[in-house]
């Protein structure tokens, strides 16, 4: 499969179809990381295996802007797993990425693994092995496991009495250092000025206090309603190990319940939970 990916990447770069291929590589100390390949000769750096958990779609909104005023937006190829593809669909629906500026290399997903070789919990709940959207698919789709996400992790928390639930979340969120890595890693968090970072502290102040920290995460969860593809990027990057996916999964569960099994990024329409401004109301940039 990796040979297919490399061959395709080489072809895309040689023909000038894309400026850059975003994939994965192994860093000098053996850690897997996002790779940006510009030269055909460099495609040998690319790898793909069960350690490639980063959602590379997060880099696309940034690349969707011209580097200099008046320059054309370059086309980028990106490797996407099924969950990544759903977040990309959300961005396409919300006009954050232009379809003709992205070349989607779908990968048949083996499921991601933890450092100790066990499958990532989220991948044991996932029934998608092939992305819903791609230009080219690499790899043979493994057999689809017959699983349905029961949201048992969310239900365990929901079952707790209110005080315990509150204590659990305040305890977890107290460790937050407001580094915003969760937001920065999230493909569907792309506002140019985050509500939590406004100069006037309108919604959230800058202090390292539980109310501010909790409120930031709650705002983020609400803004992800019907948009979060549960790619786990937020939780994977949290330097404090806060179970952030659990918050988003709670919202995803409620959305699915309220809206006949709705899942983010499975249709080509923007989520009904987001108001799209059109015509005269449309704004170019979010401030």
């Amino acid at each position, binding site marked *: 499969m990796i040979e297919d990916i490399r061959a395709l990447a080489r072809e895309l770069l040689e023909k000038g179809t894309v400026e*850059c291929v975003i994939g994965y590589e192994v*860093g*000098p*100390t053996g*850690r*897997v*990381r*996002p*790779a*940006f390949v510009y030269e055909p000769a460099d495609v040998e750096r690319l790898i793909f295996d069960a*350690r490639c*958990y*980063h959602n590379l779609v*997060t*880099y696309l909104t*940034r690349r969707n802007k011209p*580097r200099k005023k008046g320059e054309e937006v370059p086309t980028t190829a990106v490797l996407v797993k099924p969950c990544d593809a759903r977040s990309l669909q959300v961005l396409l629906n919300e006009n954050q990425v232009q379809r003709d500026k992205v070349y989607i290399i779908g990968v048949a997903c083996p499921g991601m693994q*933890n*450092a*100790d070789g*066990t499958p*990532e*919990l989220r991948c044991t709940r996932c029934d998608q092995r092939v992305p819903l959207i791609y230009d080219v698919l690499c790899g043979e789709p493994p057999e689809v496991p017959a699983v349905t996400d029961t949201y048992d992790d969310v239900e365990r928390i929901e079952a707790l009495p209110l005080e315990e639930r509150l204590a659990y979340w305040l*305890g977890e969120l107290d*460790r937050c*250092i*407001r*580094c*915003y*890595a969760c*937001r*920065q*890693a999230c493909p569907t968090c792309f506002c*140019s*000025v985050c509500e939590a*970072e406004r*100069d006037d*502290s309108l919604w959230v*102040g*800058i*202090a*390292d*206090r539980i109310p501010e920290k909790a409120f930031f995460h709650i705002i983020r969860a609400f803004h992800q309603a019907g948009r979060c593809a549960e790619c786990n990027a937020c*939780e*994977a*990057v*949290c*330097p*404090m*190990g806060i*179970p952030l996916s659990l918050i988003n999964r709670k919202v995803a569960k409620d959305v699915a319940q309220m809206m006949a099994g709705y899942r983010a990024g499975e249709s080509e329409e923007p989520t009904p939970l987001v108001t799209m401004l059109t015509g005269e109301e449309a704004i170019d940039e979010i401030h």
Partner: protein
Amino acid sequence: MKFIETQALHAWLDKLAQEVTLIAPTAVGPEKKAPGSRNPAAQGQQVFYRAVSDSSQIAWDFTRTVISAREHFMPKTETLFTIETGPDGETVLHETKLERPRVIFGIRPCDARGLRVLDAVMLEQEPADVYYAERRRNTTLVGLSCPQMWEDCFCTSVGGAPNASDDVDILLTQVEGGCAVQIVTAKGEELATGMDLQEVEGLELPQPKLNDQFETPTEQQWLASFNDVYWQRVGDRCLSCRICTYVCPTCRCFDVRDETVVTPTGERIVRRVRAWDSCQSVNYRVHAGGHNPRANLEQRLRNRFYCKFHYVPVDYDVAGCVGCGRCVTACPVNIDIREVLQDLARRELA
């Protein structure tokens, strides 16, 4: 060589905790979070420097804390003053009270060395920051040598050592049955009067296991690399989060705002608050009018490297990085400061 038995050390710490604010490495968070996760932070408890009430709360076998000790000199948030209304309706600014004396026990030599940078900026460069100065004056540092350089550590490549005593008041080194004790400063001398010290002849300090040392770029290489496309290539991967700057012992950037907070008892407090900020954040430099002079990611990433290795050394004659390795461990996309330094150091100058 002075020596203190483990039991005597614990007894001293227990007593100390009654007299001063004792800050020490402590394991925080739930025991098991997400075992097996690729996120190192999710694999168990994490160690921080926290106030403890007795020696049993101290994590003795820690590598390095997640956040450096700088959070106790420049807190993540502090109130500069509260803005109050006096009896005649006049505005009164009320400054925060002083803290009681503190001892930071178990500070690693690299973290203590990091205070050189903060001292240079906050204390020695006039006018001194009174909040930092007060905390610094009020605090005695009892260091604990690293028995080895941990994964990602590179202190020896930037002038430090895992057992350096230069920046602490007392340095302890774990040996069989207790700790060897080096008293470094007068402040340390004074604190050590409460320790049950023995003089052990021929006690030798263990040699820490070292990581490979590497060459760092020269001043000329830094100057020649500012406009290099290299920063775009490393910046490609960067997420513009703040992890590297928040775990760093020598980062100091802050934001200042006036905010009204409501306490749990319902009291409204209007205060001027200072909180950590990061040169990596997208809107760090944005002018009130919206202009962003550092709008490109690679400019922001480059600034962090130049700040550590060019601006701080040029402005304050002190090394801006202590090689603690925290940013290496914590970066979610593996931007490895050691890799960048070695890449630049290998460059041929035109």
